[in-house]
Protein backbone atom coordinates (compact mmCIF):
# COMPACT_ATOMS: atom_id res chain seq x y z
CA UNK A 1 0.00 0.00 0.00
CA UNK A 2 1.41 3.43 -0.92
CA UNK A 3 1.15 6.47 1.36
CA UNK A 4 -1.46 8.01 -0.95
CA UNK A 5 -3.81 5.04 -0.47
CA UNK A 6 -3.46 4.65 3.28
CA UNK A 7 -6.31 5.91 5.46
CA UNK A 8 -5.84 8.01 8.59
CA UNK A 9 -6.76 5.00 10.70
CA UNK A 10 -4.21 2.84 8.91
CA UNK A 11 -1.45 5.39 9.51
CA UNK A 12 -2.28 5.79 13.20
CA UNK A 13 -2.68 2.10 13.90
CA UNK A 14 0.59 1.23 12.22
CA UNK A 15 2.52 4.08 13.84
CA UNK A 16 1.28 3.11 17.29
CA UNK A 17 3.06 -0.19 16.65
CA UNK A 18 -0.09 -2.07 17.60
CA UNK A 19 0.15 -4.11 14.40
CA UNK A 20 2.82 -6.44 13.02
CA UNK A 21 6.45 -5.19 13.19
CA UNK A 22 6.86 -5.45 9.42
CA UNK A 23 3.85 -3.15 8.88
CA UNK A 24 5.25 -0.64 11.39
CA UNK A 25 8.63 -0.58 9.63
CA UNK A 26 6.96 -0.20 6.23
CA UNK A 27 4.83 2.71 7.45
CA UNK A 28 7.83 4.48 8.99
CA UNK A 29 9.70 4.10 5.69
CA UNK A 30 6.70 5.46 3.75
CA UNK A 31 6.30 8.38 6.14
CA UNK A 32 10.01 9.18 5.93
CA UNK A 33 9.76 9.14 2.13
CA UNK A 34 6.66 11.36 2.16
CA UNK A 35 8.27 13.91 4.50
CA UNK A 36 11.49 13.97 2.47
CA UNK A 37 9.60 14.64 -0.79
CA UNK A 38 7.30 17.20 0.82
CA UNK A 39 10.10 19.19 2.45
CA UNK A 40 12.25 19.08 -0.69
CA UNK A 41 9.36 20.44 -2.74
CA UNK A 42 8.41 23.09 -0.21
CA UNK A 43 11.90 24.38 0.56
CA UNK A 44 13.86 23.61 -2.60
CA UNK A 45 17.53 24.61 -2.34
CA UNK A 46 16.92 26.38 0.95
CA UNK A 47 17.21 23.01 2.69
CA UNK A 48 20.47 21.23 1.80
CA UNK A 49 20.28 17.44 1.37
CA UNK A 50 22.18 16.66 4.60
CA UNK A 51 19.95 19.06 6.53
CA UNK A 52 16.90 17.51 4.91
CA UNK A 53 17.67 14.13 6.49
CA UNK A 54 18.14 15.71 9.93
CA UNK A 55 14.84 17.59 9.65
CA UNK A 56 13.01 14.46 8.47
CA UNK A 57 14.37 12.55 11.48
CA UNK A 58 13.41 15.31 13.92
CA UNK A 59 9.97 15.57 12.30
CA UNK A 60 9.40 11.82 12.76
CA UNK A 61 10.24 12.16 16.46
CA UNK A 62 7.85 15.12 16.84
CA UNK A 63 5.11 13.21 15.00
CA UNK A 64 5.45 10.29 17.37
CA UNK A 65 5.28 12.58 20.38
CA UNK A 66 2.18 14.35 19.01
CA UNK A 67 0.40 11.31 17.59
CA UNK A 68 -2.24 11.28 20.35
CA UNK A 69 -3.13 14.91 19.57
CA UNK A 70 -4.08 14.17 15.95
CA UNK A 71 -7.85 14.72 15.85
CA UNK A 72 -8.41 13.48 12.28
CA UNK A 73 -9.78 16.86 11.17
CA UNK A 74 -7.52 16.62 8.12
CA UNK A 75 -5.67 13.95 6.18
CA UNK A 76 -2.91 12.39 8.24
CA UNK A 77 -0.36 13.37 5.57
CA UNK A 78 -1.42 17.05 5.69
CA UNK A 79 -1.06 17.03 9.47
CA UNK A 80 2.35 15.36 9.19
CA UNK A 81 3.48 17.88 6.55
CA UNK A 82 2.46 20.81 8.76
CA UNK A 83 4.57 19.49 11.63
CA UNK A 84 7.55 18.86 9.34
CA UNK A 85 7.36 22.33 7.76
CA UNK A 86 7.16 23.94 11.22
CA UNK A 87 10.15 21.86 12.30
CA UNK A 88 12.19 22.89 9.22
CA UNK A 89 11.25 26.57 9.52
CA UNK A 90 12.19 26.60 13.21
CA UNK A 91 15.60 25.10 12.43
CA UNK A 92 16.29 27.49 9.54
CA UNK A 93 15.28 30.48 11.66
CA UNK A 94 17.42 29.25 14.57
CA UNK A 95 20.47 29.07 12.30
CA UNK A 96 19.79 32.39 10.59
CA UNK A 97 19.35 34.32 13.83
CA UNK A 98 21.66 32.38 16.17
CA UNK A 99 24.13 35.26 16.38
CA UNK A 100 21.50 37.93 17.02
CA UNK A 101 20.55 38.44 20.65
CA UNK A 102 17.13 39.72 21.72
CA UNK A 103 18.78 42.96 22.90
CA UNK A 104 20.64 43.42 19.60
CA UNK A 105 17.43 42.87 17.62
CA UNK A 106 15.78 45.57 19.71
CA UNK A 107 18.62 47.96 18.96
CA UNK A 108 18.16 47.38 15.21
CA UNK A 109 14.67 48.88 15.17
CA UNK A 110 14.54 51.67 12.61
CA UNK A 111 12.39 54.44 14.07
CA UNK A 112 13.22 56.96 11.37
CA UNK A 113 10.28 58.33 9.36
CA UNK A 114 9.81 56.96 5.85
CA UNK A 115 10.90 58.81 2.73
CA UNK A 116 9.27 62.23 2.71
CA UNK A 117 8.35 61.86 6.36
CA UNK A 118 6.39 64.83 7.68
CA UNK A 119 6.22 66.49 11.07
CA UNK A 120 2.99 64.53 11.66
CA UNK A 121 4.87 61.28 11.04
CA UNK A 122 7.48 62.28 13.57
CA UNK A 123 4.77 63.08 16.12
CA UNK A 124 3.16 59.70 15.50
CA UNK A 125 6.48 57.93 15.94
CA UNK A 126 7.14 59.80 19.19
CA UNK A 127 3.66 58.83 20.39
CA UNK A 128 4.18 55.17 19.49
CA UNK A 129 7.49 55.12 21.35
CA UNK A 130 5.93 56.85 24.35
CA UNK A 131 3.13 54.29 24.30
CA UNK A 132 5.60 51.41 24.26
CA UNK A 133 7.47 52.95 27.20
CA UNK A 134 4.38 53.77 29.27
CA UNK A 135 1.65 51.29 28.43
CA UNK A 136 3.53 47.99 28.07
CA UNK A 137 5.14 45.63 30.56
CA UNK A 138 8.89 45.11 30.45
CA UNK A 139 8.44 41.69 28.80
CA UNK A 140 6.06 43.16 26.20
CA UNK A 141 8.51 45.97 25.43
CA UNK A 142 11.32 43.45 24.99
CA UNK A 143 9.18 41.29 22.68
CA UNK A 144 7.85 44.14 20.56
CA UNK A 145 11.31 45.67 20.09
CA UNK A 146 12.81 42.29 19.15
CA UNK A 147 9.96 41.58 16.71
CA UNK A 148 10.26 45.04 15.11
CA UNK A 149 14.02 44.43 14.87
CA UNK A 150 13.34 41.33 12.78
CA UNK A 151 13.69 38.47 15.27
CA UNK A 152 11.05 35.81 14.48
CA UNK A 153 8.46 34.86 17.10
CA UNK A 154 9.72 31.27 16.91
CA UNK A 155 13.15 32.45 18.01
CA UNK A 156 11.74 34.42 20.93
CA UNK A 157 9.72 31.35 21.90
CA UNK A 158 12.76 29.06 21.73
CA UNK A 159 14.92 31.41 23.79
CA UNK A 160 12.24 31.95 26.43
CA UNK A 161 11.31 28.25 26.39
CA UNK A 162 7.64 28.96 25.74
CA UNK A 163 5.36 28.12 22.82
CA UNK A 164 5.10 30.29 19.71
CA UNK A 165 1.47 30.84 20.68
CA UNK A 166 2.50 32.22 24.07
CA UNK A 167 4.74 34.81 22.37
CA UNK A 168 1.92 35.69 19.97
CA UNK A 169 -0.46 36.20 22.92
CA UNK A 170 2.11 38.42 24.67
CA UNK A 171 2.48 40.55 21.53
CA UNK A 172 -1.26 40.57 20.90
CA UNK A 173 -1.85 41.93 24.39
CA UNK A 174 0.91 44.50 23.78
CA UNK A 175 -0.76 45.60 20.52
CA UNK A 176 -4.16 45.90 22.23
CA UNK A 177 -2.67 48.04 24.99
CA UNK A 178 -0.75 50.19 22.52
CA UNK A 179 -3.76 50.61 20.27
CA UNK A 180 -5.81 51.72 23.28
CA UNK A 181 -3.05 54.12 24.28
CA UNK A 182 -2.92 55.60 20.77
CA UNK A 183 -6.72 55.96 20.65
CA UNK A 184 -7.20 57.53 24.07
CA UNK A 185 -4.00 59.54 24.34
CA UNK A 186 -3.75 60.48 20.69
CA UNK A 187 -4.66 64.12 21.04
CA UNK A 188 -2.90 64.97 24.27
CA UNK A 189 -0.10 62.50 23.53
CA UNK A 190 0.71 64.25 20.26
CA UNK A 191 0.90 67.55 22.10
CA UNK A 192 3.19 66.03 24.73
CA UNK A 193 5.36 64.55 22.00
CA UNK A 194 5.82 68.08 20.64
CA UNK A 195 6.88 69.20 24.10
CA UNK A 196 3.70 71.22 24.81
CA UNK A 197 2.76 71.74 28.45
CA UNK A 198 -0.89 72.14 29.42
Amino acid sequence: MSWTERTNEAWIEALRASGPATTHAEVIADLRDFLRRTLAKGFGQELASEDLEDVVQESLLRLHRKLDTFQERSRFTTWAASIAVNCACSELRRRRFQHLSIEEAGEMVDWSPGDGGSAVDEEQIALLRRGIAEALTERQREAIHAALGGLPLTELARRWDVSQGAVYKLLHDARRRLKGYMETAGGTGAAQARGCVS
Partner: protein
Amino acid sequence: MSSKPKASEMLRALLDQTREEEIDCDRFLELVGPLLDECIDDPSLREKLAHHVRQCAECNEELEILRKALDR
Protein backbone atom coordinates in the same frame (compact mmCIF):
# COMPACT_ATOMS: atom_id res chain seq x y z
CA MET B 1 18.74 52.27 -0.21
CA SER B 2 17.45 49.98 2.51
CA SER B 3 14.32 48.00 1.69
CA LYS B 4 13.72 47.14 5.34
CA PRO B 5 10.30 48.50 6.38
CA LYS B 6 10.28 51.26 8.96
CA ALA B 7 9.23 50.20 12.45
CA SER B 8 6.51 52.83 12.69
CA GLU B 9 4.93 51.74 9.39
CA MET B 10 4.97 48.07 10.44
CA LEU B 11 3.59 48.82 13.87
CA ARG B 12 0.81 51.11 12.62
CA ALA B 13 -0.26 48.48 10.08
CA LEU B 14 -0.34 45.86 12.83
CA LEU B 15 -2.28 48.12 15.21
CA ASP B 16 -4.83 48.97 12.51
CA GLN B 17 -5.64 45.28 12.18
CA THR B 18 -5.46 44.40 15.88
CA ARG B 19 -8.66 42.85 17.27
CA GLU B 20 -9.82 42.14 20.80
CA GLU B 21 -9.69 38.40 20.11
CA GLU B 22 -7.24 36.73 17.76
CA ILE B 23 -6.19 33.17 17.06
CA ASP B 24 -2.64 32.50 18.28
CA CYS B 25 0.07 30.54 16.49
CA ASP B 26 -0.50 27.31 18.44
CA ARG B 27 -4.18 27.27 17.45
CA PHE B 28 -3.30 28.22 13.87
CA LEU B 29 -0.84 25.32 13.61
CA GLU B 30 -3.55 22.96 14.91
CA LEU B 31 -5.95 24.16 12.23
CA VAL B 32 -3.62 24.64 9.25
CA GLY B 33 -4.13 21.00 8.17
CA PRO B 34 -7.96 21.22 8.13
CA LEU B 35 -7.64 24.63 6.42
CA LEU B 36 -5.50 23.19 3.60
CA ASP B 37 -7.77 20.14 3.24
CA GLU B 38 -10.81 22.48 3.11
CA CYS B 39 -12.36 20.80 6.13
CA ILE B 40 -13.30 24.01 7.96
CA ASP B 41 -16.95 24.79 7.26
CA ASP B 42 -17.27 27.75 9.61
CA PRO B 43 -16.61 30.91 7.52
CA SER B 44 -15.96 32.93 10.69
CA LEU B 45 -13.16 30.55 11.69
CA ARG B 46 -11.67 30.65 8.17
CA GLU B 47 -11.67 34.44 8.37
CA LYS B 48 -9.94 34.36 11.77
CA LEU B 49 -7.23 32.13 10.31
CA ALA B 50 -6.82 34.49 7.34
CA HIS B 51 -6.50 37.39 9.79
CA HIS B 52 -3.85 35.50 11.75
CA VAL B 53 -1.61 35.06 8.70
CA ARG B 54 -1.89 38.78 7.99
CA GLN B 55 -0.65 39.48 11.52
CA CYS B 56 1.97 36.72 11.79
CA ALA B 57 4.81 36.61 9.25
CA GLU B 58 6.04 33.21 10.48
CA CYS B 59 2.69 31.43 10.13
CA ASN B 60 2.16 33.11 6.76
CA GLU B 61 5.54 31.79 5.59
CA GLU B 62 4.74 28.26 6.81
CA LEU B 63 1.34 28.30 5.12
CA GLU B 64 2.90 29.35 1.80
CA ILE B 65 5.55 26.62 2.03
CA LEU B 66 2.84 24.04 2.82
CA ARG B 67 0.73 25.19 -0.14
CA LYS B 68 3.74 24.83 -2.42
CA ALA B 69 4.74 21.46 -0.96
CA LEU B 70 1.24 19.98 -1.13
CA ASP B 71 0.09 21.65 -4.40
CA ARG B 72 -2.82 23.44 -2.70
